[in-house]
């Protein structure tokens, strides 16, 4: 159980951090009604979101060691 939990912890840590950063960037970008805020949201936040979601989905199907 401990080994399994550690494996899950590792596989969720990176996507979790990416998603937290993406969500935080979206939060900050919405406080700022300027064109650069849109760029920040769309390119930086969007990339973090997509990477986080992709890694999470990959962790669901990847074989655990």
């Amino acid at each position, binding site marked *: *159980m401990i080994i399994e939990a550690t494996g899950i912890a590792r596989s969720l840590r990176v996507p979790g951090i990416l998603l*937290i950063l993406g*969500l935080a960037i979206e*939060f900050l970008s919405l406080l700022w009604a300027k064109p650069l*805020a849109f760029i920040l949201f*769309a390119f930086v*936040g969007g990339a973090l979101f997509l990477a986080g979601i992709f890694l999470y989905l990959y962790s669901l199907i990847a074989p655990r060691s």
Partner: protein
Amino acid sequence: MHLPTPGELLYVLLLISIVLVVIVVLRPGVTNSREGKMLAFLAFLILPVLCMFWGASEHIDRSKQTQFCLSCHVMEAYGKSLYVDDPSYVPAAHFQNHRIPVDEACYTCHTDYAMYGSFRAKMQGLQHIYVQYLGTIPNPVRLYTPYNNRECLHCHLGARSFESNPIHVALLDSIKSNQTSCITSGCHDTVHNVANQKNVKFWSPAQ
């Protein structure tokens, strides 16, 4: 009673999403149970996707605001032209008399009232950002294409004040086909006219 705006609800959803992701990251053991796996699925997939689409919609709505367009330095003079105290200035007369939504003044006249016009306006907005930060801003700023009468007719066609004018009636086909331009054929030719801004009076709203 204050009802939360969609923007405020989005802030709440973002905070809830962040808290749920933090919980799963700090306590991954919760995913051992079926409910925990569902929580992780909600926190790592459903809520972020919802936040992403809702956030994009919120940003797109904000990009229509007059304040948003005027936040770039190069647009300041155009924003000021909306307050010129002279009814022959077409944008000023529309803005000051609320013939267009004051909060979306730029977007209302400069979007393209055709299929995908809003999408094209967003793409041009990205190009504007590129030019603002990485390119060379043209002086004076010019439209990409001549102003299309379609944008004027979107509101004026069918309006009594427009159709009761015999000149409009006589030239209607020519106006519709853009052979006669509303703003460059000598009829309504004072538009933003920012080059002449030093010599005009400005209107100050009461509030």
